[in-house]
């Protein structure tokens, strides 16, 4: 163990944890004023519920070692429940910093992933149903996926797909789940009919700034050390975000005539998503190309929801699912040996493609079942009157902004 690596990973833990509040505001600014608290809460509550479950059993199931079926690592066990036997050493993970730091670092990823889904179900999902949903989803979808990719499971070991910081585990996972969930939930009243406008873009832009900042912990920390690989992850992260943001507003300017601030920050997030699986494997110039593709493709992907009539309210599919797929696939081609030790190749591309399909299908189908069951058991959608009056009053008995004085 080295104090420098420990210092950097501790910092990364804090940075990634901050991303969930950042995400809350990124999303919260985009909804109407009557629903902003409901949206913030759906994000923040992940910091509560997922933390508890992770400490109790999630961390253990993901990282205690691999229970195999045939040659395929499928899930961990309960040996590490409650983190009772984790100790103060690095014996378990063998990383150059203590095991408990790694568990904390992984926890921050486990928190933000379900929080990402919240953008899709904005302005209409019950809070209680959401709270139950993310608890179940964490254990049934997030934990296995993490195990497969980072916990010794079959995606890493057998398929040999690469995922530097969560293209599969975080973004495709959340994006596919979002799609399944909104198919059960249905569109908001007024979707495609009324203008449903953001109530406070400054909040959204602030949230994006915080996300961008925190992402350096997300990708930089995923180097699992304070070294040149982390430095390269910083550069590629920054370049991809910058390029995608710029590409997005250029695409906007060509299409609508004006570059928008919401477009800029949306593009930045698309770039950050796309570079996530690739940050440690590509060069800064490779990241620029990746950012360019992500910015343009995600921008056009926004239209899918209007074409297929699913109300992905804050575009989780277009940004996280599409962006995650772009990054995971292109990484198979753009990887350079000098950076992460792996060169892009047809083989790698195929591995990436297979892993993408698995992640997408698993997350989508299991989420769909969870959502359907929950809807039958407790109902996942607020009443029409509650939706009209706003979730803040209906679900939380609060108003975001005071009236007089």
């Amino acid at each position: 163990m080295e104090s420098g690596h420990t210092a950097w990973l501790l910092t990364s833990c804090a940075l990634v944890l901050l991303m969930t509040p950042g995400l809350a505001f990124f999303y919260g600014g985009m909804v109407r004023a009557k629903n902003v608290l409901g949206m913030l809460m759906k994000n923040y509550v992940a910091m509560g519920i997922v933390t508890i479950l992770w400490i109790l059993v999630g961390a253990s199931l993901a990282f205690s070692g691999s229970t195999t079926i045939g040659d395929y690592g499928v899930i961990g066990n309960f040996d590490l429940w409650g983190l009772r036997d984790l100790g103060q050493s690095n014996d378990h993970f063998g990383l150059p910093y203590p095991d408990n730091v790694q568990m904390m670092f992984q926890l921050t990823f486990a928190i933000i992933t379900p929080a990402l889904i919240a953008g899709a179900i904005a302005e209409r999902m019950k809070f209680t149903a959401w709270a139950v949903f993310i608890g179940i989803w964490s254990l049934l979808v997030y934990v296995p996926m993490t195990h497969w990719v980072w916990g010794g499971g079959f995606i890493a070991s057998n398929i040999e797909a690469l995922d530097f910081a969560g293209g599969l585990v975080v973004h495709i996972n959340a994006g596919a789940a979002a799609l399944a969930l909104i198919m059960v939930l249905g569109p908001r009243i007024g979707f495609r009919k009324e203008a449903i406008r953001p109530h406070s873009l400054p909040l959204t832009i602030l949230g994006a700034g915080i996300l961008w900042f925190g992402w350096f912990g997300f990708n930089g920390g995923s180097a699992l050390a304070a070294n040149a690989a982390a430095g390269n992850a910083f550069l590629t992260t920054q370049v991809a975000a910058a390029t995608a943001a710029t590409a997005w507003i250029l695409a906007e300017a060509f299409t609508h005539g004006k570059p928008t601030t919401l477009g800029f920050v949306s593009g930045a997030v698309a770039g950050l998503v796309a570079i996530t699986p690739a940050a440690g494997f590509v060069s800064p110039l490779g990241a620029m190309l990746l950012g360019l593709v992500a910015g343009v493709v995600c921008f056009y992907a926004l239209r899918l929801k209007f074409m297929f009539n699913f109300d992905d309210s804050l575009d989780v599919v277009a940004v996280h699912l599409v962006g995650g797929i772009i990054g995971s696939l292109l990484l198979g081609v753009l990887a350079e040996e000098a950076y992460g030790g792996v060169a892009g190749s047809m083989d790698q591309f195929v591995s990436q493609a297979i892993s993408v399909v698995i992640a997408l299908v698993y997350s989508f189908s299991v989420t769909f079942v969870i959502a359907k069951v929950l809807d039958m058991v407790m109902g996942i959608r607020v009443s029409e009157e509650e939706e009209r009056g706003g979730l803040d009053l209906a679900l939380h008995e609060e108003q975001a902004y005071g009236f007089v004085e």
Partner: protein
Amino acid sequence: MKLVIAYINPFRLDEIRDALKETGVSGLTAINAQGFGRQSGHTETYRGAEYEVDMVPKVRIEVLVDDVLAPAVIDTIERTARTGSIGDGKIAVIPVEDVIRIRTGERGNDAL
């Protein structure tokens, strides 16, 4: 000329405005308001302190119209604002002595 004031549910604004446009209204002005009435308010809770809030967010629109168009305007608002539940709001009709268009100085019906 009349000033037609209506207190409406915020989410009906767009539809009402479009309907009024079709009725031949040349303009209107809308304001965010808080209404108190039969519609029951709601409870708000902040750190365990519960407040009964009687006021409900409403939009107040006002339309200047000539006497001839007034009934149609009232009728349009009535139809498009109605959802059938308490809180749909009210319309009030107020006499107007004169209207002036600032840009041209036109007065009376010409100003509308």
